[in-house]
């Protein structure tokens, strides 16, 4: 996926990719496989300071943005959570901070994976998205103030 594409283009491409799968087993298998290909976080970030504690699974989020382009690495101890992280980061990474702050993650509804992002699911994903948005706002604010 080109880094020049927009956030909605990347979401649309992902949806198209998932349309190949007829049933949930294949869809979930693809989520799990995407998790296996996820860019690993640097071990120095596998600490409590970068951990998003979920009741069911844990997420570690490593911010590595430069300028106003947002870039994150993340990991989870659960494979489905990790696969969903891969999906989210594929769409969100390489976006501008302002794009992320304003973007509604509606593409997940179409993937039928939305239930995993519910705050009541307690797998750390909902908190991860909130954290990414906060980072994005901070990146944008920082960029404006240093202009």
């Amino acid at each position: 996926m080109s880094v020049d594409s927009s956030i909605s283009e990347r979401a649309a491409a992902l949806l198209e990719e998932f349309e190949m799968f007829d049933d949930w087993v294949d869809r979930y298998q693809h989520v799990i496989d995407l998790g296996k290909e996820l860019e690993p976080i640097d071990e120095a970030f596998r600490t409590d300071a970068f951990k998003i504690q979920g009741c069911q699974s844990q997420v570690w989020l490593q911010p590595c943005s430069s300028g106003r382009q947002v870039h994150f690495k993340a990991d989870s101890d659960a494979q489905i959570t990790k696969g969903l992280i891969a999906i989210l980061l594929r769409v969100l990474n390489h976006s501008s901070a302002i794009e992320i702050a304003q973007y509604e993650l509606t593409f997940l509804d179409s993937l039928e994976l939305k239930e995993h992002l519910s705050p009541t699911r307690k797998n750390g994903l909902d908190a991860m998205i909130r954290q990414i948005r906060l980072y994005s706002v901070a990146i944008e604010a920082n960029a404006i103030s240093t202009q």
Partner: protein
Amino acid sequence: MDKIREDFPALNQLIHGLPLVYLDNAATTQKPLAVIEAIDGYYRNDNSNVHRGVHTLSQRATDAYEGARATIAEYIGAKSTSEVIFTRGTTDSINLVAASFGGTYLKAGDEVLVSEMEHHSNIVPWQLICNRVGATVRTIPVTDAGELDYPAFKASLSTKTKLVALTHVSNALGTINPVKDIITEAHAMGIPVLLDGAQAVPHGRVDVAELDVDFYCFSSHKLFGPTGFGVLYGKREFLEVMPPYQGGGDMIDVVDFAGTTFNDLPYKFEAGTPHIAGAIGMAAAIKYVNSIGFGFIQNQEAGLLHYATQQLTAIDGLRIIGEAKDKASVISFLIGSAHPYDVGTILDKFGIAVRTGHHCTQPLMKRFGIPGTVRASFTFYNTRAEIDRLEIAIRKAAAMLL
């Protein structure tokens, strides 16, 4: 069996297009029609506040509410209804004892003895009161099989021990603790015992008089009754001395700014308008359980536990956590390195409801060095066919995850 399953309307539904297999009974059980109808009937016909009204409805509500207390007292073998205190549930019951008994009897340097297999609700209330008074929560270790380390328990009892607070049946492992021996042992040293009976009452008859237990806590919703309601049984000798836990209406005798006197037992501990429908629903649940009978229930559960253990252990890489000799119908397990969250998510897609995670027993998970488990818990309305579906779904989950 079909007849029994018809008593539970929630069992009859499709999840992701498949018939629901409900194996999360240790978290909460489904409710029989008898309970649903009792609650419905109360709100339709008798709804009124209890104890204070002179009108007919209030009298009917009070009769039903106090009748429920009599049903519950008889069910657990309490000598008197005044020893049966209504609470919001097991957690509330333990908090009541921790605050009121703990606040009265615990002093700096004292110890409250709990085990490593306690639910957080039988750890944290003791930590709170112990921190306040300078006492210590001491833990009894658990063996690799998930049993209480009995010699360590005996060695932990001392003149510093002011209370033993122990789970009757472990929610995470299913272990049934030898509570009769534990109580005898503790009483020989003059130490009272509190039992967390939340996981015990659905599986067998509990007789507080025969156990000679000092406090027994349990919830309605794990016994086929409504949520938000539970019981604290306490021996009168302690309840009389213990101060009220919460203040408000119903728990008072005379209120005056110069000083208030308190109502008699059990009302001293029941501030505010109670969960009247909860009491009535729980009494209906008890009557339902009595009509099924523990003979049938225990026979059914033992068969399911044996069959599920046999079917699940045949799965490659499956490891059961908690292999106590004396065990309730609960199987906690892990498959290979698969995370419980992933397994639970996939089982749900197959229409199977299990519990995943640490089961509010983080110290126990730490002791076994695991992030959590997948827990299947059975009750008398479950079937072997459901266990077959569980087994097949676990194999499919393993194929996806490993």
